[in-house]
């Protein structure tokens, strides 16, 4: 869940100051009437990236993508592709292709016709068009479907035709707006991996919009989490998960327990005073803020250790409460624990044992512990 395939590990052009981004978005804004859909947004995307735009509904993902494709013109700012200013270039002249959420296949054309459409606009010779269409069909594993009409295909097949159509022109960048939203869960998971394989084969930069954080975590080399037209954080999936830079990001990706408190200095062992927890929480590192500064500690449920045994006295980061609710998820169980302060905290534990042997039950008094490195201190 937290990291992509191993091959990606070494691929981190965004950390390389010499790498020139293929796409550079600089302080772009777009408003519809009084609604600011995209607000002073800046972003660099590098060649070969699989870049995911993630965010709640209405946060401006589609708007940003449509500006990249050229369907909308930014009110302010600049969009540069491979060093060329694209801001005023119409869509039909941009070396960028988009895969539409609705697929937008031309219903009156065969699958071949759809895929060949973009190539014909370039005026390629018929022979080349033919081979490239065949290649594209092979790539999406639909070699025998060329003569069908879109309405004779299943949803998943249509989605792949749409992908082939947008890839066949070998654009510098492929934009995908929730490409998998219409597929059922199982097909979606299969297709995620297919998409990744294809992206590696063709080496084109992908920018994908999604609602689904699992999808983003699985596929993306980097994720941009958006909030009301702005970017909250851009980082590789692991970092987004492990090192969120704000409560917003921490809360948006996965589930998290948040504790609010005030910074207590201390050189070796910085802590936070927290009324909700009923005790001081220790922090992994000292922070560059004055004592008394307000801050939050975020901790993921699976990082909490739950036990009925009271810890030895003096153990740091130890909370106690009563089991309020237990959720059985198959691989995991989540325990909702009501602290003495009334705050509810979630803890997840892998079900290493059979259910019948579970030792913790409703109304039990339990103790929650974690190592300081498992928690993240947030200033906003």
């Amino acid at each position, binding site marked *: 869940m937290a990291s992509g395939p191993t091959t990606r590990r070494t691929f981190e052009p965004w950390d390389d100051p010499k790498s020139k981004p293929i796409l550079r978005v600089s302080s772009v804004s777009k408003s519809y009437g009084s609604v600011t859909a995209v607000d002073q947004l800046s972003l660099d995307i590098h060649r070969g990236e699989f870049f995911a735009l993630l965010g709640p509904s209405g946060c401006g993902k589609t708007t940003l993508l449509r500006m990249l494709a050229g369907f909308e013109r930014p009110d302010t700012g600049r969009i540069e592709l491979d060093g060329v200013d694209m801001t005023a270039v119409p*869509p*039909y002249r941009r070396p960028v292709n988009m895969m*539409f959420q609705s697929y*937008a*296949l*031309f219903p009156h054309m065969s699958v071949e016709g759809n895929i060949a*459409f973009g190539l014909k*606009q370039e005026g390629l010779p018929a022979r080349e068009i033919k081979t490239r269409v065949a290649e594209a069909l092979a790539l999406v594993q639909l070699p025998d479907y060329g003569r069908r009409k879109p*309405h004779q295909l299943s949803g998943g097949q249509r989605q792949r035709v749409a992908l082939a159509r947008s890839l066949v022109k070998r654009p510098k960048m492929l934009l995908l707006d929730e490409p998998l939203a219409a597929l059922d869960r199982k097909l979606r998971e299969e297709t995620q991996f297919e998409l990744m394989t294809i992206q590696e084969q063709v080496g084109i930069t992908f920018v994908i919009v999604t609602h689904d954080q699992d999808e983003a975590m699985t596929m993306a080399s980097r994720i941009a989490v958006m909030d009301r037209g702005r970017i909250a954080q851009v980082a590789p999936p692991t970092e987004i998960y492990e090192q969120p830079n704000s409560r917003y990001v921490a809360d948006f990706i996965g589930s998290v327990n948040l504790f609010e408190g005030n910074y207590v200095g201390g050189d070796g062992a910085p802590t936070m005073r927290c009324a909700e927890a009923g005790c001081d929480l220790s922090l992994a590192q000292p922070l560059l803020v004055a004592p008394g500064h307000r801050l939050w500690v975020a901790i993921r449920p699976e990082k909490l250790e739950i036990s009925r045994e009271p810890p030895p006295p003096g153990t740091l980061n130890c909370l106690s409460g009563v089991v309020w609710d237990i959720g059985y998820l198959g691989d995991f169980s989540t325990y909702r624990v009501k602290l003495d302060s009334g705050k509810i905290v979630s803890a997840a534990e892998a079900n290493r044992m059979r259910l019948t042997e579970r030792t913790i039950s409703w109304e039990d008094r339990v103790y929650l512990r974690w190592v300081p490195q498992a928690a993240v201190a947030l200033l906003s």
Partner: protein
Amino acid sequence: MTFGAATREATRARWAARASLILKPLQSALDAFPPSRWLMRRLDRRALKGRLLAIAPPYAWLLIFFLAPFAIVLKISFAEPDVAMPPYTEVFALIEDAGSFFLSIKLNFSNYLLLIEDDLYLRAYLNSLKIAAISTALALMVGFPIAYAMARAPRRWRGALVMMMILPFWTSFLIRVYAWIGILKNEGLLNGFLQWLGVIGEPLTILNTDFAVYIGIVYSYLPFMVLPLYAALERMDESLLEAASDLGCRPVKAFWVITVPLAAPGIIAGSFLVFIPVVGEVVIPDLLGGSDTLMIGRLLWAEFFSNHDWPVASAVAMILLLILVIPIVLFQRHQAARQEAAR
């Protein structure tokens, strides 16, 4: 008062011509003709009862309002004119001969021969087809942008726009055509306006020309073109045009390779709805056209009213029907093929 009388006369003319042109049902009639025995064999016995009930009303409607009048007109087309009430001879007669009864059938083919011998009819048919074709093309040219604009208008306006398209239909067709006389005549509004602008010195002669006929027809039949086009265009997914643009297609070209093919069902339906009635149009050429606007509807009128030759009038109508049925059947085939493909 003259106005009222002419109105009524024209209305009558219109209906007389229309009555013999109930075309749409014919096509279904032809489809339906290899009749119920064939159906019986195909339908499971039990399923049949329910289905029969369901299909009975349209068939009854067809029988009463199309096939029966059609049979009567067909019969009259084989009769001879006569000074009598009604003014033609009987085709079927029951003859008694020495206690036995015989059904005598007397078919007179000379009405059809006349249509072949006198090239007036051929020219009138051709000219009607020509006028209908040109009018259809003009209506399409005028109607398409209107339908397009309607389909792309904000959703909350569309209902009102459709309403505005239909609204003129609530007033009498004839009054609207008469209004055009007022606009087009030499001292009319249009000439007055153009002269006032100084575009022209002398008034243009528009009324009583073919041009006026085209104006009248396009005006009167425009909704029949616009509404099916609108229906087709409104259904069209706008993202298709964005997809085309995204794939490198300029907007003008996208119009031809995406919008037009997808609007094809609307274009075909609209064209038929304009073309077919215009072929038999009587009133507009009579009121707006010159006396040399030769159209088959007018000829039919003359046969019926001036010559009192109902048999020839019927023959004219039968041939007109045949001419129009061919494209309709072709259209129907095309439509059936599409539906098959769409399944």
